[in-house]
């Protein structure tokens, strides 16, 4: 190929499906994207975001020089000064006995996350290390592991496309994980029966054989009902054919009030009789404790029906972002070491001592929400944490109160704007390294163009920062860091040396990924409390006896629109920018028939009242919303805070103004 033009194979930086694509550059400027026809996951198909994978790097507001805040204003400086300043700020906080936290990222590579964990546990000697979208994914994984010891995610998408029945716990995966939606669509085209479950009809629901509507908190009840039927049949040692007949059609849990017993029976019957079936669990608006309970229940269903033992059957939890799984496996979590090893695992600690060259802090740390209220210093890698928090506004307030906020990012995010030191790193199009997809596929990401200005690769900056804090060992390249990962995480070494390893990656499965015994106790207790509260709200709403006839429900747990990769992409951000301009105060969605009865038209403002407070907000009408339910898009959760008070649902009254 002639100098000046190149097609570089890399991995899509958005969701966790792990699609392959080529970034194109001409004279070191990104120009576009071509799908990889031979990639085993995507096979030439990319979603809207994948086709725009070059845009944020090309058009985005980039950090190009190290910045240090003086007198409230960011001033450009050189790398040496910025790193020294950052190290001094951190050292002062440590000297005063206060805590520092480190956040890895599902948007960063395995190498960057590994070095962020090294920075936390090795250089700063703290267990306060986490990443933004870890909690929901790990809750799903942990729940699955409670009931299904063998959870093989290998080729899960390909297998899903050939399943006969698919149970899909929705958060609109046509938007969040389009390649997974494609696999389901192909299955439906082949005649599979799709059962969608969620509070709102989505694009996939329109293709479904059956849609089971229920409110957040109802998922686990439905799944438990599925599972109890399956378990009873299993204990009777009956064939799968007999399972469905045992479904008790009497009193269903209150949270399943929207589902008829006949619907439930049909779904159970279809699932149990299928020769191969899939359960796909998308992250929903439910909090982590609920998610764990939901995943547990569905895994019981899969295990009880022996579906998991059948070749080609699938139980697939979906992480939010391209490397959410990789960040967790690199140890960006308060409860485990790289490789998802227990903090007490001596063998894992000795391996880390060998590659890090220093002792490490092996105590359990704080998670992201707790960190923001308790630490005085925070290092953020490639992320804008408030976007994933229960309240974005509260998150920003917490960040602004920190004594030291150090941000490593390619983009000028709102968090970078708040930082005391901003360190510019390469974007996904400018970085070498690896990422790990939802299936466990470890794939190389390759730099297509050099980072702009004085920006440097993330691994280099993390190395230098660790060195400024006294760590001796440094790395020469991202590959050098990956060699350390292979030592620290034996499963990655096995996968890489496997005969099945190809240029499109290799599959690594960590047996330890699911374990977090301490969290299990705490989260189970939390789940019970949260479920009780949800059911109480539901009963209040359903009964309508206390003047709150509607149920206000927050949908989604992560939205791409504010993520830097989308917000800085001209093509991808158009809808969201338009929505923000047209609806600066946010809105809620309401069933069209309900609105007619109240005399509310599309876009009119209404007063929404719960027992916690009230808010006046525009209402948008939607036929896909169930009657008596109102939906709050995740992006507008702060606007509904007076009514929701950081919960995901509330019984409310609605009045036309």
């Amino acid at each position, binding site marked *: *190929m*002639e100098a*000046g*033009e190149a*097609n570089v*194979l890399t991995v899509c930086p958005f969701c966790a499906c792990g699609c392959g694509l*080529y970034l*194109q550059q*001409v004279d070191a400027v*990104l*120009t*576009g*994207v*071509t*799908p*990889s*026809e*031979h990639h085993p996951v995507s*096979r*030439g*198909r*990319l*979603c*809207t975001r*994948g*086709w725009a994978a*070059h845009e944020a790097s*090309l*058009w985005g507001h980039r950090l190009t020089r190290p910045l240090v805040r003086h007198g409230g204003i960011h001033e450009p400086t050189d790398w040496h000064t910025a790193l020294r300043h950052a190290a001094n700020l951190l050292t002062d906080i440590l000297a005063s006995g206060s805590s520092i936290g480190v956040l890895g990222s599902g948007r960063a590579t395995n190498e960057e996350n590994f070095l962020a964990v090294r920075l936390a546990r090795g250089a700063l000697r703290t267990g306060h290390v986490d990443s933004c979208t870890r909690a929901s994914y790990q809750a799903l994984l942990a729940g699955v592991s409670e009931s299904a010891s063998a959870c093989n995610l290998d080729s899960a998408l390909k297998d899903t496309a050939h399943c006969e029945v698919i149970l899909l716990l929705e958060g609109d995966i*046509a938007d969040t994980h*389009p*390649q997974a*939606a*494609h696999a389901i*669509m*192909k299955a*439906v*085209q082949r005649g599979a029966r799709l059962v969608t479950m969620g509070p709102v009809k989505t*694009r996939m629901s*329109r*293709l479904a054989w059956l849609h089971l509507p229920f409110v957040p908190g109802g998922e686990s009840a439905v799944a438990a009902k599925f599972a109890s039927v399956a378990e009873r049949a299993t204990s009777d040692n009956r064939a799968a054919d007999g399972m469905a007949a045992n479904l008790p059609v009497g009193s269903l849990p209150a949270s399943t009030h929207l589902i008829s017993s006949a619907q439930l029976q049909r779904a159970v019957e279809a699932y149990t009789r299928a020769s191969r079936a899939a359960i796909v669990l998308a992250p929903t608006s439910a909090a982590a404790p609920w998610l764990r309970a939901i995943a547990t229940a569905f895994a019981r269903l899969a295990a009880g029906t022996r579906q998991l033992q059948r070749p080609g059957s699938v139980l697939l939890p979906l992480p939010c972002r391209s490397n959410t799984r990789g960040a967790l496996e690199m140890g960006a979590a308060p409860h485990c070491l790289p490789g998802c090893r227990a903090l007490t695992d001596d063998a894992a600690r000795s391996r880390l001592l060998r590659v890090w060259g220093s002792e490490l802090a092996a105590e359990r740390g704080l998670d992201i929400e707790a960190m923001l209220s308790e630490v005085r210093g925070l290092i953020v890698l490639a992320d804008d944490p408030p976007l994933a928090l229960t309240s974005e506004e509260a998150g920003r307030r917490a960040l602004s109160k920190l004594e030291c906020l150090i941000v490593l990012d390619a983009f000028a995010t709102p968090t970078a704007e708040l930082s005391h030191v901003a360190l510019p790193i390469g974007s996904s199009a400018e970085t070498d390294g690896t990422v790990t997809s939802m299936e466990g596929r470890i794939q190389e990401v390759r730099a297509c163009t050099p980072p702009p200005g004085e920006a440097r690769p993330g691994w280099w900056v993390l190395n230098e920062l660790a060195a400024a804090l006294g760590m001796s060992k440094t790395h020469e390249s991202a590959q050098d860091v990956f060699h350390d990962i292979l030592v620290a995480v034996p499963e990655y070494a096995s996968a890489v040396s496997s005969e099945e390893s190809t*240029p*499109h990656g290799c599959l690594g499965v960590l047996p330890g990924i699911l374990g977090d015994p301490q969290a299990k106790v705490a989260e189970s207790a939390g789940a019970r409390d949260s479920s009780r509260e949800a059911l109480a709200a539901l009963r209040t709403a359903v009964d309508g006896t206390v003047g709150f006839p509607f149920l206000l429900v927050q949908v989604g747990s992560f939205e791409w629109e504010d993520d830097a990769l989308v917000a800085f992409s*001209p*093509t991808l951000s*158009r*809808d969201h920018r*338009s929505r923000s*301009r*047209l609806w600066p105060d946010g809105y809620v969605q309401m069933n069209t028939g309900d609105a007619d009865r109240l005399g509310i038209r599309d876009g009119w403002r209404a007063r929404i009242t719960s027992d916690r407070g009230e808010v006046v907000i525009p209402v948008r009408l939607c036929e896909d919303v169930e009657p008596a339910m109102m939906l709050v898009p995740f992006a507008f959760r702060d606007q509904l805070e007076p009514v929701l008070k950081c919960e995901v649902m509330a019984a409310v009254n609605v009045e036309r103004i």
Partner: protein
Amino acid sequence: MRPDDALSIAREDLPEWLALLGTRAQMIAPTSGPHGDVFYSPVSSPDEILWEFENSLQPPKRFLLPQTDPLVKIHSDGGRFHLEPVCDDRRQILVNLRSCDLKGLLYLERVHTYDLPDPSYLRRSENRSLVSLACTEPCPPGFCICCDAGPFLRHGFDLQMTMLSDRMFVEVGSDKGRSLLEGAESMFRPATPDEIAKREALEAAARDHFKTETCHFGSAMRRISTGRVAEELWEAMGDWCLECGGCTLICPTCYCFSVKDRRVDEGWVRCRTWDSCQYAAFTLEASGHNPRPGRKDRMKRRFFHKVSAQYYQRDGDVGCVGCGRCIKVCMGTTNMPAVVEAIRKGEWHG
């Protein structure tokens, strides 16, 4: 085919001829990427050129209509803005184009010529020579025969090559094509009657390959042009579209674009970038009104443009060259043959 338009060259002389062309212009040809994918890319040696290949997923239209296409440099000087057009005057020869892709470039040329000629596109077009390689073995997803876009072309090429057993049959389609033979006259000789017969036989065999598998544009055109496609059908098909936009971005005849300014040094570069009529925001107006708010609306618009008699009259062809790429890249199931069949039959089964 006039006698002096039909030539042949020994296969072993091809590298020498192509190397000669490479000294006059940048050669663009199908190449094998490091991971098994085929790309049209600049080549520095004839050895890099593929002669037997499944067509690239991305069509070579990007050499005339890049995904990011700088049009104007803008800089300010004391409050005044200065505009400077960005001219791509590189001379390029596109070699081994598949018939469908060449037909797609002809379609784009017409679109960028009539009404309001596009100087940026036309400048590039003037500086490009198009050399096609006829498809003696049509590719599996292709249906070019239904669009009069292959497997062999009758016109539109500068040169069309057909691989015979030991020689390459070369048809000259334009003066630009004839100029590509200058300096290499000794390598070419008029095609013999036997070679012409072989070429005709290869075309007949290639056409026969399609048998009755066709994409029935005719009956679909009658229905869509007269508004006889039910709204319910568009809605049903819209449910099977995931709005990835892939069908439009890889289509050799699609040209929807957006305009964006990129900050460079002290100024800006105004760029034309690929866009898709299948994206909701493509027609979103500043007021928030969207004339095509639903997937069914956008799909209806796309296929009306592609298949209707109204556009056939304006553009001179259906907006499809039968390359089959939309079948490969579709995240849903709404590729061209599937939708045309649904329109024709009035029913959709996913």
